[in-house]
């Protein structure tokens, strides 16, 4: 199997899906001639033309609204929001429109769209190129929220998202785009939406994460393994629908849970995972459910010391694992 980067996994999925289904089209800012600011759509316009790989005006609500309309008229749009930080102007189109089209029409209409957006920090992106926005959308019934952490999943989950009959938000960690490499199956590799993956089996505690944090948790797990703490690491892969079964089976086994995310603590998606564990696995717990998350400041600063202070790191995660194991 070929070893590829996460962004190559994304691109491979786009090419294969556009090749397979003429209804699939791509739109967003700079996705055409430039191939996207991260080059996720590099080469697509040359291959499929300006109409199917469309450079849109700089207007996020327009990007999502046009995607919705095109889906109502038989196309399958893959909209790119250049940075997750810029998705907020499209919040109304995503939450009031895309998420509710099936429900409010009693099943008469549907909205099969994919919205891709790079998210996450640690790249000196400052306040407006570092955000994690998954909690806003994971809150909304009618949407699916997918976050791949490996190149193989990037390809397989994006293919599943494009074939999904409902709106899917697909968040890609920008720091993982090139730093994370792995084997990517050739051909029609599809990973079902809604299934978490146990990335490292363990017995002492359960660590739950998504995106780049999965890799940081794995790194931390190796560190504490040398000290005799055997951590299990779960990559959620999909926040909505959430794979509660995998989370609960693991916590019932280890009796300890640590949830890690970059998004700030309060109201982050970790709160939902913690609540599920507290209510469904209470009698199995030997320690309080623990969260390690970004601090409750408005966004991630640009300067190095404060960015590092904001971001969870393998060291901070290892420390949290030690505390939890010792409880």
């Amino acid at each position, binding site marked *: 199997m070929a070893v590829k980067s996460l962004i190559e996994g994304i691109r491979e999925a786009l090419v294969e899906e556009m090749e397979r289904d003429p209804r699939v*089209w791509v739109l967003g800012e700079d996705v055409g001639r430039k191939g996207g600011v991260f080059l996720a759509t590099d080469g697509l316009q040359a291959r499929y033309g*300006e*109409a*199917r790989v469309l450079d*849109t*005006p700089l*207007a996020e*609500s*327009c990007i*999502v*609204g*046009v*995607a*919705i*309309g*095109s*889906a*109502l*008229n*038989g*196309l399958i*749009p893959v909209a790119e929001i250049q940075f997750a930080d810029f998705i907020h*102007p499209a919040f*109304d*189109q995503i939450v*009031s*429109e895309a998420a*509710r*089209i*099936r*429900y*409010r*029409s*009693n*099943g*008469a*209409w*549907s909205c099969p769209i994919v919205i891709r957006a790079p998210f996450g920090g640690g790249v000196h992106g400052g306040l407006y190129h570092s955000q994690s926005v998954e909690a806003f959308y994971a809150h909304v*019934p*009618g949407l*699916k929220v997918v976050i791949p952490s490996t190149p193989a999943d990037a390809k397989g989950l994006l293919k599943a998202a494009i074939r999904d*009959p*409902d709106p899917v938000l697909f968040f890609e960690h920008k720091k993982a785009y090139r730093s994370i490499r792995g084997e990517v199956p050739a051909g029609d590799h599809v990973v079902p939406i809604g299934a978490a993956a146990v990335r490292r089996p363990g017995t002492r505690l359960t660590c739950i994460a998504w995106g780049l944090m999965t890799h940081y948790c794995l790194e931390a797990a190796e560190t504490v393994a040398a000290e005799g703490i055997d951590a299990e690491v779960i990559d959620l892969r999909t926040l909505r629908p959430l794979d509660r079964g995998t989370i609960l089976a693991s916590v019932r086994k280890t009796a300890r849970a640590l949830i890690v995310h970059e998004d700030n603590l309060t109201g982050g998606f970790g709160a939902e995972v913690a609540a599920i564990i507290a209510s469904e696995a209470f009698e199995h717990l030997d320690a309080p459910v623990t969260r390690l998350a970004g601090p409750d400041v408005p966004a991630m600063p640009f300067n190095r010391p404060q960015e590092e202070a904001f971001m969870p790191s393998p060291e901070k995660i290892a420390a949290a694992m030690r505390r939890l194991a010792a409880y």
Partner: protein
Amino acid sequence: MAPQPLRENRVEMSEEGMASASTAPRARRLALGLGPERLLTMYRQMLLARALDQRAWALNRQGEAPFVISGQGHEGAQVGAAAALRPGVDWVVPYYRDLALCLAMGMTAREFMLSVLARADDPSSGGRQMPSHFSLRRARIVTISSTVATQVVHAAGIAYASQLRGLDEVTITTLGEGSTSSGDWHEALNFAGVHRLPLICLVEDNSYAISVPRRLQMPIASVAERAHGYDMVGADVDGSDPLAVYEAVSQAVQRARAGEGPTLIRARCTRLTSHSSDDDQRRYRPAEELEEARCSDPIDRFRAYLREEGLLTEEAEGQLQRECGEEVEAAVEAARAAPLPDPGDLERHVYAEG
């Protein structure tokens, strides 16, 4: 893509057009190619819409319908627009005042009443949405929300898909003049202008967004003037005259189908009722203005026109009124007898089933 030369735009004013309401009515309808039968069908659609609308208000005041929002005073613009479109082929992305438009495009009186009484068989939403949030898939009437102008962007996307797929379809979207203040409206028209989409944006300008007058929405007299900025044709027409709107929309359809791009039409309408059943417009509109509004009732004006044309006798008028009244009562009875939504279905259709 090679840059396209700037085209000379214009705002077409119907008063200066070839088909003026005040002169030579017969020549006018002949020029528009509308036969007596079409005209009487249009008139009947207006009457039916008005009767249904009034009946919905009565149901509200009697405590049977929790909420009603009205299209009274807009029927001329809507029926005129519908007459220029192909039901089931062209796309309709409406807003909540478009009862007459939806009826003319294929919704039935019974289907409307099912939504007023929020019954399970309501084709717009199965009783989930407030009434007048129209949707009817078989007629290509697209589901809408209560937020304003979001649907205009969907209309642009639908039209883009028609263009990309090479389909001979036109999309019409409607909204009130207040909603043109929103960013989505600009984003949609800008996109439509850039790609010369087969799109018609019909602004039903009744001078009020709930209580806020037009002069606080825009610094210009006619929103059609904004067409220049999107490199599209703008037209300003008398929305109480269905023939004027028919003419403007027909021309827009021709342009769209010929690949000549979108059209922005402002139809000057009048709002005969309060914004909704929860509003009382006497709080913010002077009595003389309300009296004046009744003088531009599109139904009275079209009736007078048909009478003048010799196409509508008093007897035929009475017959039409009776038919519409019966149709409305049958619709109310059918809706009353129809089952309510099942609370067990609350969680259905969040995602695809099966």
